[in-house]
C-alpha cells in the first residue's frame, strides 16, 4: 500500500507529527510518500524515520521534494 501526505507550509512540529501518525496506519511493506518544501522539515522527518528504523529516500521532480519512507 502507498500513502501520501502533504506537509508543505506547516509549522514545526506538524510535519513530523503527521508523518508519525501516517506511518502508524501502515503495515510492513507499505510506503509513505511525504511532500515537503523546506530543509528543516526534510531533516526532521528523515531523522525521525531513520531513528525509528525506516528507510528514507529523497527525490525531487517538477520543483516538488518528496520523501519516500519504506516500512519493512
Amino acid at each position, binding site marked *: 500500500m502507498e500513502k501520501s501526505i502533504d506537509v508543505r*507550509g506547516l*509549522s*514545526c512540529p506538524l510535519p513530523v*507529527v503527521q508523518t508519525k501518525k501516517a506511518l502508524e496506519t501502515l503495515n510492513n511493506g507499505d510506503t509513505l510518500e511525504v511532500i515537503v*518544501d523546506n530543509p528543516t522539515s526534510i531533516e526532521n522527518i528523515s531523522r525521525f524515520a531513520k531513528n525509528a528504523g525506516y528507510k528514507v529516500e529523497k527525490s525531487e521532480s517538477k520543483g516538488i521534494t518528496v520523501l519516500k519512507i519504506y516500512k519493512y
Partner: protein
Amino acid sequence: MSQNKLVILSGIIVGALSVLLIILGNPANMGICVACFIRDIAGGLGLHRAELVQYLRPEIPGFILGSFIVASLNGEFRARGGSAPLTRFLIGFFVMIGAMVFLGCPLRMVLRLSAGDLNALVAFIGFAAGIYYGLIFIKKGFTLGRSNKIEKVNGYIMPAFAIFLLILVLAAPKFIFFSAKGPGSMRAPFLISLAAGLIVGILAQRSRLCMAGGIRDIYLLKDFHLFSGFIAIFVTALILNLITGKFKLGFANQPIAHTMAIWNFLGMFLAGLGSTLLGGCPLRQCIMSGEGDTDAGIAFFGMLVGAAFAHNFGIAASPAGVSINGQIAVITGIIVLTAIALLNVEKD
C-alpha cells in the same frame, strides 16, 4: 559537518558568546536574552518609557541578518507567509508577557541556570510543562494552517528592518532612547554585539537551534538532537561562569531576577505554551524571520508590542517581584492561548 555535531558546536559558541558579552558589558546573566533585548529595542524606539531598559540592542538585528545572509547563500531563503498572521502576532505578544514576568526568554533561562540562579530551575520546569500542555493540542490536531510561498520582496522586510535598527543606533537621532542607568545602559561595544549576533544568527539558522524544540522533541519523539544544543549552551556557559567567578548558587539576590516561584513557573509556562503553538522559541522566530518567514516576522512584532505593553501597563516584573497586573496578564495569556489552541483544530 553533521547536523548532530553542528547543533552541539552552535550551543558551545552561543554559550561562550553569552558569557563574553557579559564580560564586555552586557547585563549580568544576560549576555543574550532575546525577549529582554526585544524589550530594550521597544524602549529605544520609544514604544515604552521605562528609562532603565531602552537601547536598540545590535544583537537582535545580528540574529536576523546572520540568518538572512547564510540562508541566502545556502538557497534556504524562502519568502513565505499566510499562516494565521494575526493570531501569531497575539501568541508572540503573550510569549513576551510570560518572558517579562519571568525576566528572561528561554535562552536567558538556560544562561541564568548556568550561573547558579535556581529561580531559573523553577522556570525551566514551568517551561517544560507549558510545552507539554501545548503538545496536547498539537496531538489533537492544532494547526494555524499552511503558509504559502510569496514574492521575495516580502521576505526582505525583516532584514531591512534589522538594518534600519542598526542605522538608528549608530546615528542616534534625538527620538531614539538610550538608557543612562540600569540594564539598558549595560552594553557591550556596538561592533562586538553585532558580530556576536551575526555569528549566533548564522549558527542558529544552520543548526535549527530552538530551546522549545529541544524539550518538545523529547516528549514527542524521544529525540534528544535539539536538546543536545540546549545542553551544550548550558555546560559551556556553566564552565565559563565558574572560571570567571560569575557563578552563584541560590535563589535570593540573583542579578535581574525575582524569587516569586509561582510566577517564574507560570511566566515560562506561558512562554513554553506560546512557543509550542508558534513552532519555535523567540530566538527561532528571529532566525525564521531572517529566512523569509513573514509569519515569524509578525510574531516578532507581537513580541515587540508585548514588551511595550508589559512596561506601559506595569506587567513586567522587577527584582522586587511580580505586580498584580503581571499576574493577571499571565493568567489571561494562558486562557487566551488555550482558547486559540482549542479552536484551531483541524478535524481529520
